[in-house]
């Protein structure tokens, strides 16, 4: 598949005490929605903070929209105006009212559309059936409404890329479905120029909107690719207990039980399972992500 990149990363490193983010190569394809998946502490937020220009003390090269470098991001307004970032914490101050947030957004972002902001706040039912209470403080909103308010702020701007750090975490199932619809609409409206990049712990909820997946473990990217390609690369295999020991040597990851075994197999290794009584299935993205994370996890 031919595509251009919204973001290209080369030799990116960021060191903390006891943690190293080390990404030799990473691409986020333009015009698609990309999920960033990984365990707690894998480096997802650090990576997103670097890409969105929050953390600057790193080494490596980042290219935006095929044109701009990370120096351009800091020296000119273009890159930051094109990117809408929503963080999971330390985003809006607790004492800011919705009115303050609207005023500040106008001051800080050139393309912020106040009327669109109001319309999105209403669409997301932050104050269901009531007019927007501009005097309401951010701290007085529920976690779900805080996230809706952040999304309203970023969607009210004319951006080309959304970077969303765990946007689904505080949302209820209905709003998660709405979030997927929002992301899909954003991608579709961009006519190949809109990109969404979001981190999530629950890929199952975002599966129907995810085109491309990046899996990160212990600060490094362990898998990345289009969902359809990954579903061809990995095959879900189920078999009898009697074959479990033999299959274990071939499978990428495996769970066993009284019923038999279930595991993920690289498609290139399927021939090695010949002679075993197995069922082959196309895995879901969620199953692939869990298998890849499990293969690299230090969890016992």
């Amino acid at each position, binding site marked *: 598949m031919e595509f251009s990149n919204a973001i290209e990363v080369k030799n990116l490193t960021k060191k903390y005490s006891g943690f190293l983010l080390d990404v030799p190569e990473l691409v986020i394809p333009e015009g698609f929605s990309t999920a960033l998946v990984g365990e707690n502490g894998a480096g997802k937020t650090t990576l997103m*903070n670097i890409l*969105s*220009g*929050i*953390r*600057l*003390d790193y080494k490596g090269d980042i290219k935006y929209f095929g044109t701009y470098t990370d120096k351009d991001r*800091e020296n*000119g*307004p273009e890159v*930051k*105006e094109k*990117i809408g*970032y929503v*963080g999971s*914490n*330390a*985003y*809006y*101050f*607790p*004492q*800011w009212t919705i009115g*303050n947030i609207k005023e*500040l957004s106008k*001051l*800080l*972002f*050139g393309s912020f559309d106040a009327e669109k902001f109001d319309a999105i706040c209403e669409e997301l039912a932050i104050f269901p059936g009531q007019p927007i209470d501009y005097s309401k403080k951010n701290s007085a909103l529920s976690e779900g409404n805080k996230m809706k308010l*952040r999304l309203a*702020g970023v969607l009210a701007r004319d951006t080309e890329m959304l970077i969303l750090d765990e946007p689904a975490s505080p949302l209820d199932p209905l709003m998660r479905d709405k979030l997927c619809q929002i992301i899909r609409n954003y991608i579709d409206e961009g006519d190949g120029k809109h990109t969404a990049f979001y981190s999530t712990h629950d890929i199952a909820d975002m599966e129907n909107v995810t085109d491309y997946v990046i899996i990160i473990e212990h600060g490094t990217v362990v898998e990345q690719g289009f969902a359809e390609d990954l579903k061809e690369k990995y095959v879900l295999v189920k078999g009898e207990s009697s074959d479990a020991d033999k299959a274990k040597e071939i499978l990428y990851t495996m769970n066993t039980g009284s019923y038999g075994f279930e595991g993920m197999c690289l498609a290139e290794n399927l021939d090695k399972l010949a002679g075993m009584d197995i069922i082959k299935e196309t895995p879901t993205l969620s199953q692939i992500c869990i298998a890849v994370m499990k293969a690299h996890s230090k969890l016992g």
Partner: protein
Amino acid sequence: MIKKAVNDFVLGMKLIKYGFRPKMNLGLCLFFIIIGVAVEIGSKGTEFLGIFYMLLSGLYAFQMIISMDISSFVQTSKMKRALQTSVPVITGAMVSFIVYTFVVIERLILASIYPESATAIINSLFMAILLVGITLLYEGICYKYFGLATGLMVIAVFGVLGVCNFLFDENTVVPIPTGAVVGIGYAVIFVFAIIAYALCRILYKKDLSKFAFKGILGKME
């Protein structure tokens, strides 16, 4: 350049109300100004501490603007660099400049009313402005390296106070002319604000000190 400085100052004043806990910080700022005025009245302008308290208002202005930078919403805006460098430095320096001008007028009036204390009135003005210079340098470092900046500031403050007390108490130097002290005061604000700006630019890429923003982060997470 002047137009940009004025624009940054205007923007800074607009943004102050969005800083962390603006009412509490403005209240503290006002409290120190009142204490400063009280010290000035009590000492008839012969102590440096009254002026220093009043001039802390510049540091408060700086602090309230830079506190916004802990917000990732602010950090991902195109104005991130300005909000970590020029806007807080210029706003803080302009507030110091305005307060210093009032203080100079007050001290000149006091020196004319109490000519017998004129030397002490001007010498303490000189001490206060040196301390303001130190706080400007502190601003340039403390939000990236809080511990280091605080340590250096304590050493510098005690150094300046020690040297000034020795020089002025022992009358080992010829008193500095009033006009020169006033001029040095403005120069200190101007030059040290430029140095603070340069430090902010040099340290811009460093992560914000979690220790400096501990209170804010605790409330945000």
